[in-house]
């Protein structure tokens, strides 16, 4: 499986979901959102803003959902940023899979222009750590490029494609940023979304992919045919064909997250559901359940 195979002529992709199914899903979301917005006092001026991360934490561990994030920094974040940037460069310019160092250089240049502090962080490393980082970055970018399709403008490639759905008159919004998108309306080609992860595959990535498919479907009136998650850490590529049931599942997760957010907005104590993620959770120092689990 590769992104290139998905975009190859004759690729086996499902017929994109469109029509009344999407109307019904929007209707269900609107119904739940409208009631919740009134109950929780969310308005267009002071809305509930959901992202894939917020949806995931509200369902998995509400305690984590209401904990501010720590500033992201460090090696893994930087590696992810480089792979992500390499994907974006490869979406607008052909990158030679045989010249991985050139691709890493192009990715670092992209990050620089984007105002990311990756290069500053990199320059702060001792030379031997920097060499190790560059070696690892090249490994991951190489894995990503190995399955990347040749640049074909007819697919209308675009990067950092924001998708957003406003519910209850804007009192609740659900938004996401797709790393790379190909085809879809108004082209006659099926839509294919690509999410790039710098690290290893985790099963939670599937729900993120489903959510992006739902948001994209509601925006465009036609669902993408597939969402591919490329994990440069282990080279795994997971392809999710987007069928009705996938979109329904994503919509139900959104309603579940809205319901949990409503309970929290009412002042209910957020439940802590400990798990392997506790190790890196910023709430851990104050979370008894997380500490017990981690011990």
């Amino acid at each position, binding site marked *: 499986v590769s992104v290139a195979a998905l975009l190859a002529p004759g690729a086996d992709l499902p017929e994109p979901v469109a029509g009344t199914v999407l109307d019904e899903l929007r209707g269900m979301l609107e119904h739940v959102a409208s009631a919740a917005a009134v109950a*929780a006092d*969310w308005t*267009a*001026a*002071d*809305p*509930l*803003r*959901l992202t894939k991360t*917020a949806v995931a934490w509200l369902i998995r561990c509400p*305690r984590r*959902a*209401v*904990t*501010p994030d720590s500033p992201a920094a460090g090696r893994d974040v930087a590696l992810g940023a480089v792979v992500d940037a390499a994907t*974006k*460069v490869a*979406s*607008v*310019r052909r990158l030679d899979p045989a010249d991985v160092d050139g691709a890493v250089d*192009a990715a670092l*240049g*992209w990050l*620089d*222009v*984007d105002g990311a502090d990756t290069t500053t962080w990199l320059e702060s490393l001792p030379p031997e750590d920097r060499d190790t980082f560059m070696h690892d970055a090249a490994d991951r970018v190489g894995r990503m490029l190995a399955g990347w399709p040749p640049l074909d*403008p*007819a697919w*209308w*490639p*675009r*990067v*950092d*494609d*924001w*998708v*957003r*759905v*406003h519910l209850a*008159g*804007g009192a*609740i*919004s659900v*938004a996401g940023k797709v790393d790379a998108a190909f085809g879809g*309306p*108004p082209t006659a080609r099926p839509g294919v979304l690509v999410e790039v992860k710098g690290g290893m595959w985790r099963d939670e990535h599937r729900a993120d992919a489903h959510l992006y498919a739902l948001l994209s479907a*509601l*925006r*465009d*009136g036609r669902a993408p045919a597939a969402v591919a998650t490329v994990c440069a850490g282990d080279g795994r590529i997971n392809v999710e064909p987007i069928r009705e049931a996938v979109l329904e599942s994503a919509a139900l997760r959104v309603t579940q997250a809205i319901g949990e*957010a409503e309970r*929290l*907005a009412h*002042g209910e104590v*957020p439940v802590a559901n400990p798990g392997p993620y506790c190790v890196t959770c910023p*709430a851990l120092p*104050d979370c008894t359940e997380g500490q017990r689990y981690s011990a």
Partner: protein
Amino acid sequence: VSAGAGRERAERLLALAAGAVERATGGLDEPMRVSWYDALDADRCPAEYRGRLAELGGDWEGWSPVIAARSVARAALLTYLESPPPPGGVHRRPDPLTIVRDQIAMARTNPVRSVDEWLADATTTDHERRATAARATRWLTALLRMIGWPLPPRTSLDDGPRWRAGSVTVVASLDATSGRVTAAGEHEGLVLVTSSGRGVAALRDRACVEAAAMTLGRGIAPAAVVVLTADAGDRICVAASDDALARGLDLIVAAVRERVTARSVGYDEADTRPGQHCRTCARADRCPPGQAWLAGPGRRRKGLPVLP
């Protein structure tokens, strides 16, 4: 729409506008350019807007991929439409990446506009050109997705009109207009926004400002301004009624007033309007009313409570 409705609405607005803008300048005779960006920011929090002007100035800081993308995308589409059509006489739907790259290549070999000169400049890096291409491609994809192909009849990609009153220039920032400009004002202004994150109320205000600026610049009010949201796929249509035009003019005049005030008074906490924008405000840690809002009504983060 009556035969002269567009002109009549424009005449009513013009009768108010020159005096209102002149009063707002308070006699200051320095060139000032006001667009939707000033109008919305000054309305959102006058204190922050003035403080930013006083500290950073409101001057043009040069091209960057973020700023150049829209300009390059629109130029790419215009160049494509002006190129000879293939046999059969009809342009097929262009691939955004192809025509954006062609536009950048053309700008580098034959720079005509200021953005072309930036793209051609030896100090502009390939990384910047690539980022510009990516952003312009995304912008153009969204435009074509929203307005369709072939473009709606009588679509024009001309820049929005400008209107001068003394030292003040009011700029309409339209992405396209559709329909023919007649005294009846049957045409529409089209604006593509990449993010609808500021909310529908701000987008409606944006439409009012563009409608007023179009009306002042052309002497004819459009039927409506349509805001197309690239991220949500929504079309927010605001009819250019007298009320909408008056709202747009009020926002423009208020921005002029704040620009003038900023010459002597920058940030002043008495003029703050705390709200959602405090969360991302660069001045938040230096603004007592903003901090009070964040600790009180704004305690919720993106709609969720925040644990201490």
